[in-house]
């Protein structure tokens, strides 16, 4: 039981962390609430499914393809539909909702609403105290940690990371310092969708692939971002594991828990917000005038 909760919490938390950090990045830099973020995660899963089953390619190769193709799709969508209306926040918001719905419908038309699955990359498991731990789960966890480490390196040690951080801090001053802000926003979009596609790739073998799979993590991902503080990567990381473990605890300990896991996680978010309106690690800026 303890190991069930531990494993399930770690996996949930890791995937949420990947998604939430991507979502938080693009929000911080470009102030885009990208509802379509998890739709890219769904696209990556489908791409992997298609490559492995319909084209019979090696799963690892498929994942590489997905990680390159999906960010490209993201960039095209950003250029076509989001960039021209950047000034109108409400319009951007529903453009991303419409984009997500569009992706879902395209997948529904091509693959129908059936559930699909992708094979494990590594087979086998070992057991501790009667709990089966699949190597795939460990692999997922490892990939997420490596990705997050690489992301931290990129954000803190490279020029691109510096550009992203400074644009997030103050767009106008970054512009004055000679940064091409819209280019930075493009790069951030690419990085953010790349993170979503990694999440899709590592999750695809563990979950069922279906056109509506973007809806479930969407709400929790937003809850994580709000809980941790908008635009704070550390906050998203901590928030993701808090909500991931909450979900696991509720599912295993409370009857009817599967229905209540979302609501309990969201209640925690609301309580934190009542105590700290800017989230756990968020910085409350003076209101912009």
């Amino acid at each position: 039981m303890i190991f069930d909760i531990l494993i399930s919490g770690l996996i949930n938390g890791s995937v949420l962390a990947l998604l939430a950090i991507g979502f938080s990045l693009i929000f911080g830099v470009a102030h885009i609430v990208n509802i379509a973020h998890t739709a890219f995660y769904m696209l990556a899963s489908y791409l992997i499914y298609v490559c492995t089953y319909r084209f019979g390619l090696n799963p690892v190769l498929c994942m590489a393809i997905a990680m390159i193709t999906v960010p490209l799709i993201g960039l095209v969508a950003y250029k076509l539909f989001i960039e021209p209306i950047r000034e109108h926040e409400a319009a951007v918001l529903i453009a991303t909702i419409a984009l997500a719905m569009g992706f879902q419908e395209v997948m529904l038309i091509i693959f129908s609403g059936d559930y699909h699955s992708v094979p494990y990359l590594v087979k086998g498991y070992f057991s501790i105290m009667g709990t089966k731990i699949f190597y795939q789960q460990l692999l997922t966890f490892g990939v997420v940690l490596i990705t997050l480490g690489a992301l931290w390196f990129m954000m803190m040690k490279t020029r691109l990371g510096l550009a992203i951080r400074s644009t997030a801090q103050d767009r106008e001053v970054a512009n004055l310092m000679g940064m091409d802000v819209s280019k930075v926003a493009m790069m951030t979009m690419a990085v953010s969708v790349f993170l979503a596609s990694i999440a899709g790739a590592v999750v695809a073998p563990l979950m069922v692939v279906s056109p509506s799979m973007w809806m479930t993590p969407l709400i929790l991902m937003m809850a994580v971002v709000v809980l941790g503080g908008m635009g704070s990567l550390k906050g998203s990381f901590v928030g993701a594991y808090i909500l991931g473990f909450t979900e696991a605890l509720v599912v295993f300990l409370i009857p009817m828990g599967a229905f209540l896991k979302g609501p309990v996680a969201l209640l925690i978010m609301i309580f934190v917000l009542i105590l700290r309106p800017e989230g756990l690690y968020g910085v409350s800026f003076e209101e912009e005038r």
Partner: protein
Amino acid sequence: MSLIAYYLKKPYTVFKNEILILPSRVAVLAFVLFLLFFPVVTDNPYLLRILILASIYAILSASWDLLSGFTGQMNFGHALFFGVGAYTAALLNLHLGFPPAASIPLGAVAAVIAGLIVGIPCLRLRGTYLALTTLAFPIILLGVVIAVPDLTGGELGVSGLSRLTSSRTGDYYVVTTLMLVLVFIMWKITDSNTGIIFHAIREDEIAVRTAGINTIRYKLLAFCLSGFFAGIAGGLYAHFMRIAGPSTLEVNTSFLVVIYAVFGGVVTIYGPVGSVFILFTVLEFFNFWPEFRMLAFAGIILFTLLFMPEGLLPWLRDKVETKCPRCKVRNIATRNTCRVCMAEFK
């Protein structure tokens, strides 16, 4: 005698000089007349059903505009009010035998209370935080509803409610007249002093507070008013469909409301109403290819926004009308001088 002739003539002059002079007012008049006389032309239940559902969603989207458009409190969980209204009306009707005339207003009252419950914790939040927090409330309620199936019917919902009226045409008249009246009330609210304060809160809350206005009270008022109208929409929906199911609380419903309102143009009240009627009827054409229906919906929205990010109806209105630079009165675009102050347009 001449006095009687004057009073007889006055409405006609007002009608001619105030309504026929502006295309947007003519359009509103035509829309109202169309709605009221539609069942005389045909009583096809399918067409009536489309217009009834459109009216219900029009109330819902306009109430979202009242809260999120005018007051600027981005609400992503508008389905909460809709669902609370629907479920309360349904449970009161089914278990206590209240007729629709009583259960719908009580559902609206329940939605007002829901508005208070959501509004109080949200007072300290603004912008995107507020949007994402409000998104959580209907999902929490949805989880509770599914977890206690004895009372709420779980995933199947509460079904077998009494009808609004005995016939489809009766339903149509109840819903459409109620829609027209409620939208008119909402429009009047946004035009009143309260509406101006709502507008000011959206523009600059601190400045409003500096002016000695209790913004907390007005923000809660906005939540309650919006909840009230959305609750009525929920009750009408429950009694018309004769079922209150979990679909009323789903994220999709919340998103749909936002899409309708932003597509039609926020901060207008007439925008969301118009866009619901346009999108509903346009989507019915796509029933020939059901699988492409939602894709078409998403496509229409994406491409419309590219060209008119302010929303469809304000864009159209700006095309056919111009605002006089001197006295701010609207004129038809073909005029060369202002109809009130005779200022010349360049």
